[in-house]
């Protein structure tokens, strides 16, 4: 009995210390963000931040890029992960290694590599297959989305891989094939719908990555939210804190949505195994 009490005490102690380490700075930031009006606690900093026209412009730009990144990631990763699961399981370690590379290669290296490669035509066997992309807005946006897809790759792939592991991909595929379905039908009508929760997790993590990303957007000179936050930090006092708290709030809300949907779908998608 006394050994159980001792374990319980230490668990609570470490939990408390961890929580304080995380929550105290957050509380400090929140408290600071409420002191824009001298002598009173108010939401002035929040109002100033949210009504800034630059806030709306950069946030909507990053939102658009996030949506395009999510769609591009799904189109790239879902068929790849599906095929690896189904036909090439021996390649899984290699694919997993590739998807972890973005953690190892800093974004600054990525963006300079991208600029160097795509600032002039990309030729294969003497034929220009890709025009220079850095001298147009559309081209630069394409590079930005490409960079975001790379940065979000570990999150999206891991989410999709986990989703595929939770279902019997091979048998569901064979069942669909026996009923006359081709590959596209199988992907669209059987695999994707059963990956809804995984895709939502991956999408929200990708969204959080894109919204807060600074390096790529700064060096590609795009009007994204990350550079706006950095600029705000250089010129304003309380508004950056307010936006940091709002960012935390959005991220936690996204995590809550993922948790709620995952819990609700556990029973529904247990069948099929």
């Amino acid at each position, binding site marked *: 009995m006394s050994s159980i009490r001792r374990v319980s005490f230490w668990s609570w102690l470490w939990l408390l210390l961890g929580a304080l380490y995380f929550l105290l700075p957050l509380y400090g930031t929140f408290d600071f963000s409420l002191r824009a009006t001298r002598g009173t606690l108010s939401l002035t900093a929040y109002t100033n931040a949210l009504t800034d026209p630059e806030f709306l412009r950069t946030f909507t730009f990053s939102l658009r890029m996030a949506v395009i990144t999510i769609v591009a990631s799904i189109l790239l990763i879902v068929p790849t992960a599906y095929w690896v699961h189904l036909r090439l399981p021996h390649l899984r370690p290699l694919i997993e290694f590739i998807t972890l590379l973005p953690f190892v290669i800093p974004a600054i290296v990525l963006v300079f590599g991208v600029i160097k490669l795509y600032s002039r035509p990309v030729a294969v066997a003497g034929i220009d297959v890709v025009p220079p992309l850095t001298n147009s807005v559309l081209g630069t946006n394409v590079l930005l989305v490409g960079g975001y897809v790379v940065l979000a790759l570990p999150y999206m792939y891991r989410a999709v891989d986990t989703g595929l592991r939770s*279902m019997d991909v091979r*048998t569901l595929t*064979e069942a669909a094939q*026996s009923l006359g*379905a*081709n590959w596209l039908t199988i992907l669209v009508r059987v695999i994707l719908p059963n990956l809804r929760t995984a895709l939502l997790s991956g999408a929200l993590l990708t969204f959080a990555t894109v919204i807060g990303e600074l390096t790529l957007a700064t060096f590609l000179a795009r009007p994204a939210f990350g550079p706006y936050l950095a600029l705000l930090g250089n010129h304003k006092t309380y508004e950056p804190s307010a936006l940091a708290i709002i960012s935390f709030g959005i991220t936690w809300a996204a995590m809550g949505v993922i948790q709620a949907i995952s819990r609700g779908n556990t029973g*529904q*998608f247990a069948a*099929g195994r």
Partner: protein
Amino acid sequence: MAFLELINVQKSFAQTAAVRDVNLQVERGEFVSFLGPSGCGKTTTLRMVAGFEHPTSGQIVIDSVDVTGKPPNQRNIGMVFQSYALFPNMNVAQNIGFGLKVAGKDGQETKRRVNEMLALIKLETLGNRYPYQLSGGQQQRVALARALAIRPQLLLLDEPLSALDAKIRVSLRNEIRAIQRQLGITTIYVTHDQEEALSLSDRVVVMNEGRMEQIGTPFEIYNFPQSTFVASFVGTLNTLPATLVDASQGHLRAAGHDLYTAQPITNAASGQQVKLALRPEQLRLSQTGEAENTLPGTVESIAFLGSIVRISIRVAESTLVLDEFNHPHLTLPAVGAPVTLYFPRAACLVLP
């Protein structure tokens, strides 16, 4: 011409031959089971018929069409899997209608056919349920209905009842057979359960190590096994080492006693060491009046199995098992008591 033909079908994975030289003709409307232990090649053979595995060599012909190179979605085959494989994102009606939607059937026709199938499997009120809301038996019936909805030319079942408990297995297998008879659909059924194979099938293919050991009706497989493997795999079998004294007279010597078969022995030569195989239900502890063989022994143990009482009897260096039907007035010997075993000449199987 047979409806389904497997012609010299072989399948190897790397250096391992999983299926060797399989030749089989299945008539239209026939129910054929592939029976064998795990790893014998029965599922691999089924998967080649379905198109999920490509034969290393040989041909598969369905209704005079060579389908060997055809992908699975072009063979019009219905398949039922061991794990049911219902689509979790679709309800029962949507699962059953999936193949029809893929084939481009209109909504009315799909709905009519789905209702037909729900009535066939007696789940008319469960069309809106999702797979996770169904029991194992219900899920398997939905899987069967889904496979049949597309009016396949061939129905394949890969150990469909393995994941179910014993009582459900018995009732569902009878349902499967009744539906198959009603629709007259040619069916291949893979199982390692001999009771399933023997009770359901028109013919049974017993497989071992990638080869077909024997093909025959359940009666033939059980009563006239052609190899030691078939004899021992199908049903319980007693074996006793014996010496073949005179093959033409069917005269054997085992456990120091002279025994006789009903027919001359053609699969072994006089003087050869053989195995005398006897089914437990053919042995008796009292005379029955037929021309009989006898062997003395000692009762080792008695096991009450419900409708059957299994008596183990020591005969020389071997133990033979005798099955008696249980009834309230059954008289059993005591453990350790000396007994005489009686069995007709026709019960003797001689295995090389």
